[in-house]
């Protein structure tokens, strides 16, 4: 167990492509950190640099108190779970899990004890004599986890470990991994592009975009106070709505679709153009207190929710998505009265995308 820290870590590929543009991150002992972002944002590269599978162009990676920039992957005291599991196809499950221990010269009784313990933890005791190809996807995933657990490393690194599983199994394994990590308390870094995994598993969530960490915070903070429009749109489903707006003359209100809404916080720069973000689930529907109306284009019934895609009936006719709880018998073409409340609004600078 150990803490882990990255200090201005950069990765520049030969040819000048900057995959990671200076990321700093402090991971306390026993924490579960999730790196999330769209494909190509550098999250996997960052993880692989921590693992030692990619060289670090500049900056330092520390595991515990040791700078590991030039340490071989095997000596970094980390274990990794790969997206494709990367089990040795010709070895039995037991040997797969034991391989790393035997290579380190551990005695056979201790190897057996550790493998058996991990197998019990993961409930794969009856699979130890099988070859990986005789296992289902979920079982392979467990074996891959087991191979990491037996090592008892300072940190676990997960590289999109659930993306090859079907949806149902993914939910189940997500919960199990989180529980397992809490039980054994090993510091973990988990890469995913799935925001549900990110939100549910993380103690600390790192939202990455184009090689930089856009925001490092708790999932709750990231959901409630996204620092940039990118973070705001990436986390949350359906995505946050962004509407063009203007601040009022005194800077204490905002005009959205021609309707002024008084803001609760302090004054902003008067009369400037801004972007207002509002989450689909925070738009209140109903004639009472309605501030705007929405012309409905498409309706999606998800069972538990109804998602309404429409346009704000106002100048500019900005697209708006509304999430309603339960089944709503609406039809395309109808007009839906909605209320945008000041506390649901996120204000962003339209040019930089930064939160105001």
């Amino acid at each position: 167990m150990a803490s882990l820290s990255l200090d201005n870590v950069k990765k520049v590929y030969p040819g000048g492509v900057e995959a990671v543009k200076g990321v700093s991150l402090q991971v306390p002992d026993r924490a579960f950190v999730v790196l999330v972002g769209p494909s190509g944002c550098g999250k996997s590269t960052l993880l692989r640099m921590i693992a030692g599978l990619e060289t670090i162009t500049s900056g330092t990676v520390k595991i515990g108190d040791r700078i590991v920039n030039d340490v071989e992957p095997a000596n970094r005291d980390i274990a990794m779970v790969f997206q494709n599991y990367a089990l040795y196809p010709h070895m039995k499950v037991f040997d797969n899990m034991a391989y790393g221990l035997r290579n380190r010269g551990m005695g056979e009784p201790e190897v057996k004890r550790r493998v058996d313990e991990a197998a019990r933890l993961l409930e794969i005791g009856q699979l130890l004599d099988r070859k990986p190809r005789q296992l289902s996807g979920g079982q392979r995933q467990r074996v891959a986890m087991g191979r990491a657990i037996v090592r008892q490393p300072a940190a676990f690194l997960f590289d999109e470990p659930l993306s090859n599983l079907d949806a149902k199994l993914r939910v189940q394994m997500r919960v199990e991994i989180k529980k397992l990590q809490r039980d054994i308390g090993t510091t973990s870094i988990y890469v995913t592009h799935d925001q549900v995994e990110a939100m549910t598993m993380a103690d600390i969530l790192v939202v990455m975009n184009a090689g930089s960490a856009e925001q490092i915070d708790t999932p709750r903070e990231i959901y409630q106070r996204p620092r940039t429009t990118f973070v705001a749109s990436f986390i949350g489903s359906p995505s946050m709505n962004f509407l063009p707006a203007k601040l009022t003359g005194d800077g204490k209100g905002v005009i959205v679709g021609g309707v002024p809404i008084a803001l609760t916080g302090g004054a902003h720069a008067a009369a400037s153009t801004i972007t207002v973000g509002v989450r689909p689930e925070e738009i209140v529907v109903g004639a009472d207190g309605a501030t705007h109306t929405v012309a409905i284009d498409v309706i999606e019934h998800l069972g538990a929710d109804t998602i309404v895609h429409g346009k704000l009936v106002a100048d500019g006719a900005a697209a708006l998505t509304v999430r309603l709880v339960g089944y709503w018998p609406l039809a395309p073409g109808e007009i839906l009265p909605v209320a945008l409340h000041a506390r649901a609004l996120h204000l962003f600078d339209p040019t930089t995308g930064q939160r105001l």
Partner: protein
Amino acid sequence: MVERRSMLARLVPHVILCLGVAILAFPVYLCFVGSSHPQDVISNGQMPLVPGHLLTESYWLALTRGVARTSSEPVGLMLLNSLTMALIIASGKIAISIISSFAVVYFKFPFRMAAFWMIFITLMLPVEVRIYPTYKVVADLGMLDTYAGLTVPLIASATATLFFRQFFLTIPDELVEASKLDGAGPMKFFWDTVLPLSRTNIAALFVILFIYGWNQYLWPLLITTRSDMQTVVIGIKKMIVTQDALTEWNIVMATAMLAMLPPVAVVVLMQRWFVRGLVETEK
């Protein structure tokens, strides 16, 4: 596939296949029949179509004595020479090409691709093309009439290197990375992961290369002068005398049959592996 075709439609492919087998197998059968008749019967040009009475005798004579009138060695010894040569060539080719493709695929070193292309280009330079310089080198090294001289110049193999390279490229990178994290160095990765995964490919290649080695004709013809180093393929040729004497056709045919047996045995025994190696990937 659901079989719903008419009797005739099913019959035609069978007839064609049977015809093919007959065309291929008939000379072999004739050879077998020939080995069981006295030499004068064949020499008279009256080739019978049913086996004669000399079956065991011909084979026994071939194996232990060879052809009486030429200086030939017993076929038993020739078979042993051929077997040794084929085995050394097949295993040598596999051993060298598997490590060279391992180097080309998994290591980054200067001129890596240049090295690979150099190997690749030797495809255009088989022994027949470079026969004089190769002979000179082997002769200067004093390797004439030795197993080393017989095999070493044939061992370097671009085909096998290419074959292994293509296979290694299909091994997922994650396995390499997992090995690194598990503390296995390059050679340990080779022994513990690459080699076991290549088993079926090695077997498939062995079949092909064994037959390649067994069928060598031109090179052994040049390099061996001593009759006790003769391989069976050359032996057969030398048994057929053209002047002043009658060819002992029954012995020649028996030798031809004997020469066919080891490659057939290799194919039959390794067929399962051979097919798996060419079609299946265990990953």
